[in-house]
């Protein structure tokens, strides 16, 4: 304790650059590791398909890059593909900050998409200034409602969100199957789908694929950051995430914060769903599929639950998804390889102790520290 002045000299705040390097070195290593393992799998797969070619991984990644960044269209496509991942990633990352693991982004996204499709079709004839906000709000609100349920269940009964959100994903699927083949089905199509959106379609920029939802998503990044670190609500969310007992002792209400945060998470995921429907597909059918659920988790983990990190991670995964189509056409590699690469990246992130030892760096742990709270509350009672 007598060494306090000396210690303060050692602990001088490091430069921003040094901090950025220290924060991003493990995620970067994980991404490279994931790509490497993916390359090995592509090569080994050659034995099964009979095309053994040591250059195949390079060809595959080459067309992936070309698809994602090779043209202005490609870059815009990457950004558009990253958009729901930014929102979904924040839907998971915000949960992490409150010590919650939202595996339900999938269901919240689907409910948001369904609501926007249904409401959008209903207000198709209204002027765009009315139709668009109404359709977007419908998606955001139903997403929020789908996030509210597991939040309330955890706050009031202690049912852990890891199980309830997964169940709600399946229930959302069933509900959508019912609504789109029933009440929301539009007449006059050869298959079950919602009606045309008319004026509720999101406008696009300069005739490209970049729709209004892209701007909303990128605009929300600084807003969520501000919410978390500059407001008292953000302080409450982070306190509950770091130490729910201390939060209660300090007069905060963890139950309320849990419900509020899950609803906000659902709102973000629902907004992602609204953007996809109103901005891109313009209708929803009963078998509407998406990989947003797990992608969002990967993005949130890789981005260390920080809005800026999430944006970067979303752009990375967006590029992979955007380029994978060309890769499948040119190199005949199934797009599912992206899932494998994603899982490998996460594996390296989880094993960050090992990664740091190999790299001989003393970077901070690559996972959001609030994860401990997620695991600690497993099997516990109400908050």
């Amino acid at each position, binding site marked *: 304790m007598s060494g306090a002045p000396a210690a303060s000299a050692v602990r001088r705040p490091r430069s921003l650059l040094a901090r950025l390097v220290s924060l991003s070195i493990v995620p970067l290593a994980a991404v490279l590791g994931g790509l490497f393992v993916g390359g090995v*799998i592509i090569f080994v*797969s050659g034995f*099964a*398909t009979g095309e053994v070619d040591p250059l195949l991984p390079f060809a595959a990644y080459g067309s992936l890059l070309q698809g994602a960044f090779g043209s202005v269209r490609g870059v815009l496509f990457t950004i558009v593909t990253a958009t729901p991942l930014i929102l979904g990633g924040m839907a998971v990352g915000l949960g992490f900050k409150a010590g919650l*693991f939202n*595996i339900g982004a999938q269901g919240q996204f689907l409910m948001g998409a369904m609501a926007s499709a249904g409401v959008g079709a209903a207000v198709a004839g209204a002027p765009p200034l009315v139709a668009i906000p109404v359709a977007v709000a419908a998606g955001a609100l139903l997403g929020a409602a789908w996030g509210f349920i597991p939040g309330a*269940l955890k706050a*009031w*009964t*202690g*049912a*852990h969100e*890891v*199980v*309830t959100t*997964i*169940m*709600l*994903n*399946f*229930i959302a699927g*069933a*509900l959508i*199957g*019912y609504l789109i083949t*029933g009440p929301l089905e539009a007449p006059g199509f050869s298959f079950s789908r919602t009606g045309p959106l008319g004026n509720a379609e999101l406008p696009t920029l300069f005739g490209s694929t970049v729709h209004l939802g892209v701007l909303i998503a990128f605009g929300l990044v600084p807003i969520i950051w501000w919410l978390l670190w500059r407001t008292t609500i953000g302080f409450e969310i982070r306190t509950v995430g770091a130490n729910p007992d201390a939060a209660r002792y300090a007069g905060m209400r963890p139950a309320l914060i849990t419900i509020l945060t899950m609803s906000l998470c659902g709102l973000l995921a629902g907004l992602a769903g609204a953007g996809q429907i109103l901005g891109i597909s313009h209708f929803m059918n009963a078998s509407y599929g998406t990989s947003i659920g*797990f992608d969002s*988790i*990967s993005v949130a*983990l890789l981005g260390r639950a920080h809005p800026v990190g999430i944006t970067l991670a979303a752009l990375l995964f967006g590029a992979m998804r955007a380029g994978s189509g060309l890769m499948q056409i040119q190199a005949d590699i*199934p797009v*599912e*390889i*992206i*899932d*494998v690469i*994603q*899982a*490998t990246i*996460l*594996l390296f*992130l*989880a*094993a*960050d*102790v*090992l990664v740091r030892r190999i790299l001989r760096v003393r970077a901070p742990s690559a*996972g959001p520290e609030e*994860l*401990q709270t*997620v*695991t*600690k509350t*497993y*099997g*516990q*009672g*109400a908050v």
Partner: protein
Amino acid sequence: MEALYGIPVLGVLFQFLGYVIDVTPGIAPIVVGLAAPIALGALCGVMNERSGVVNIGIEGMMLAAAFAGFLAAGLWQQAFGGAEIGPWGATPALVVGVLAAIAVAVLLSVLHAWLCVTLAADQIISGTIINIAALGLTGYLNRLLISPNPRLGAGTFSSFNLPREVEDFPVVGWILDMFLSQGPIAMSVIVLVVVLQILLFRSRWGLRTRAVGEHPRAADTVGINVIGLRYRNVIVGGVFAGLAGAYLTLEGTGSFQNGMTAGRGFIALAAVIFGRWTPIGAWAGALLFAFSGAFGQAVRIRPPGADYPDLGAVMGAIPTQVYGALPYIMTIVILAGVVGRSIAPAAVGKPYTKESKAG
């Protein structure tokens, strides 16, 4: 009971009870079959959580095992063929399939143990990785290996058929039918549940496992190898998850679809909590969830309208998708109702590190 059916609202409820009692003997064998993968997943959960490890990767382990079992059995059948070699219509291909399923699930559980126990990584993240990796890898390999080969497959195990005379016995008949008219994996569940229940509470292994899950440091101070025991239990849990996966492709359906576990691994976790971390309780939970799944089938095969007109009118108005979602709804309801009152092993989710800074 019929006298009560006329009462408004309440009458429909009584009719519902009557209907449930009517159809239960008929769907009982289906329930026990449907419960098998959930129960095996739950046994995996019990093995993990009793020793202090959360495993939300059961879903992924089951899926990977289902895929590996199907692929191995199919490839073996294609390469070597082979006739029936044992009861339940077992062929060499099916046996190889089951072994492959177990091997893959064990491999994933070693990964889980390594991440959670050795590296002290976050247990929920480790499970999530297994889920994502399993979904991705099976999807990738399915496209690569199975899709171009549509005739791949080795069929399924067949169910044991109870002699007609026994089946017709009142009450005892249908109970025997329920448990014995099963394939080998579903039937093994019953044995595994009972054996595990006894061992957990009566054997040295059980005592040590319970101690490690509650207070690993106390176990360590009396010379128990906490790390080793956790590894062992997580791996044995992997065997159960592998059997669960094998059931799906080699006993249940005979084919593989992407994501075919459909949340059973997570329902199994709810069954563990419902059963208060005991094998028998977890099995009861699995049966309950399986019943809610089979109920939809019962309604389709034998609509209630014929015998119970009021009930038929009410249930006719319920969309079929509701019956499909029933197990998921049931899981949430049970979890919300039960979880506050059942207490998890105290060390669940906490990695154990030997040396701590002590003053």
